């Protein structure tokens, strides 16, 4: 899940219009860009879709970190294809957000100066090759948990973007699992890498679902509008229940001594992540926040002359065409 702690906006609109809008949502209708919508709905969606888009973009960095060191040609090709998909997801999502009246450039500026966020998970480093497996298995896995229900979200362009994205994310998850499985079955060093990756990425993956429901103040309105489909704790539980047997199959140990099956609940009991660490990362103090933002800022700044040059050429071309007509 790439959208965490999305603050929903209070709405001061005509009560009649609001009631009619809510009725459409309750009836399962899709809201389209030209339809009337409450200002709060629009703003909350921009924040949520924007944050999701930014996550896809920043998410290229930890995986890109290993493209040049991928151990085989096939692994390199698979990783390149994956990172290319993620950039594509960013593109669809920016397009979906643009239908709400904000430009991609504006959103980019807001990412770069820290006014908009991206998922906390991408502020953790990828330190060994098994991390590439763990990212696909856990991070894409967690993203799918959240995005599958969002295919039914009330906002048409967002829902359609999610449908395209989900198909590719499940591919990524299988490929990631295959990387880490190969290592878990490999040499002692490879197995050590796989366990190390799981040790470091387990709790950050649980954080992807956002704070515990009791601390999640913005959920109710978003759920009513169907731009959030499940609570954070529901999705986190579902993720743990799905992932524990996979880790067991790999022969890897989830770094939680209190993890155990609860027969009564029909779910695993597990330890919550350290929420202080989560809030630190959100505030900018994660292990990679500064580097990630610096890399994005550098790419944007270094690319200025390219964007300017392309724009200037397009204008010259249009002017020449105009003059010739």
């Amino acid at each position, binding site marked *: 899940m790439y959208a965490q702690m999305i603050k929903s906006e209070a709405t001061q609109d005509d009560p009649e219009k609001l009631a009619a809008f809510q009725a459409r949502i309750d009836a399962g209708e899709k809201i389209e860009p030209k339809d009337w919508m409450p200002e709060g709905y629009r703003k909350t969606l921009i924040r949520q879709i924007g944050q999701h888009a930014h996550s896809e*973009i920043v998410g*290229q*960095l930890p*995986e*890109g970190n290993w*493209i*040049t*060191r*991928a*151990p*085989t*040609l*096939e*692994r*390199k*090709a698979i990783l*390149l*294809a994956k*990172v*290319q998909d993620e*950039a*594509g997801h*960013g*593109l669809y999502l*920016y397009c979906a957000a643009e239908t709400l009246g904000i430009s*991609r450039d504006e959103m980019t500026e807001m990412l770069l100066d820290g006014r908009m966020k991206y998922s906390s998970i991408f502020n953790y480093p990828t330190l060994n*090759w098994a991390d590439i497996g763990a990212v696909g298995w856990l991070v894409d896995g967690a993203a799918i948990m959240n995005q599958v229900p969002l295919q039914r979200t009330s906002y048409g362009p967002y829902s359609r973007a999610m449908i395209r994205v989900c198909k590719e994310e499940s591919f990524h998850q299988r490929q990631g699992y295959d*990387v880490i499985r*190969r*290592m878990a079955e*490999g*040499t002692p*060093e*490879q197995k050590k890498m796989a366990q190390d990756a799981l040790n470091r990425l387990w709790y950050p993956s649980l954080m992807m679902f956002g704070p515990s429901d009791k601390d999640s103040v913005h959920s109710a309105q978003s759920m009513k509008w169907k731009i959030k489909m499940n609570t954070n704790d529901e999705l986190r539980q579902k993720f743990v229940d799905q992932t524990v047997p996979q880790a067991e199959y790999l022969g890897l140990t989830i770094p939680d001594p209190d993890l155990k099956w609860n027969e009564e609940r029909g779910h695993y009991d597990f330890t919550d992540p350290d929420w202080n660490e989560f809030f630190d990362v959100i505030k900018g103090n994660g292990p990679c926040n500064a580097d990630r933002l610096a*890399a994005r800022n*550098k*790419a*944007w700044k*270094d*690319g*200025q*002359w*390219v*964007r*300017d*040059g*392309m*724009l*200037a*050429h*397009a204008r*010259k071309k249009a002017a020449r065409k105009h003059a010739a007509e």
Partner: protein
Amino acid sequence: MTAAAAKAQPALTQQEAFVQFLLRMGDNTLILGHRVSEWCGHAPVLEEDIALANIALDLIGQTQIWLGLAADVQGEGKSADDLAFLRDAWDFRNLLLVEMPNGDFGQTLMRQFLFDAWHGLMLEQLKSSSDERVAAIAEKASKEVAYHFERSAETVISLGDGTEESHNRMQAALDYLWPYVGEMFLSDEIDAAMEQAGIAPDPTTLRDAYDTRVSDVLAEATLTIPESRFAQKGGRTGQMHTEHLGHLLTQMQWLQRAYPGAKW
């Protein structure tokens, strides 16, 4: 070849010459694919990130087939991965051009353009290779490379004919890379053997078509081709690579070297 040189280098067998040719093709795509992949997540605009990843992916895909065939023909039980990850710099047969560092986006795209223009012409000829496997690879790869050329040419044109800054940067990139163009058209006994067997054209025969192709685009880009035809060489023979290749291999081959025999 002089008598002295002939004595120093025993003639290659046809099989050895064929392997060398295949390595030249596969090492070009491997090294350039690697270079392009270094951009991942750092391109000037999202569409370029996607396009660069896509080009790198095509090139790595082509590498798998070229080096796979090289390993087969060699017949020593090696795989494409063994060739990519376990040879040292002196055994690489790529053009110097493709190992040159990325520099700025302009330098990367200029390098791509200068290579694509040659690559497309080469593959076009290889489609009618007497070796069916080579012809099949060329058939597939030439479709991808036609797109690479279209895209890199378009970008060179828009940045050459963009702002003053973008023009100056593209001219600087062209001036820097031009000495590495000539190596693509050098010919040696390996090329002669390939030509004789009908496997591949003599590279010198591609120069005129290349010059036409490149000068048309560069003229539209308002860029000036340097007058000197001096050619840096040593990549495709392996006699003298640049200092850059060793660093690239250090990164690319690290896992395979550090954990020999592991399956990934």
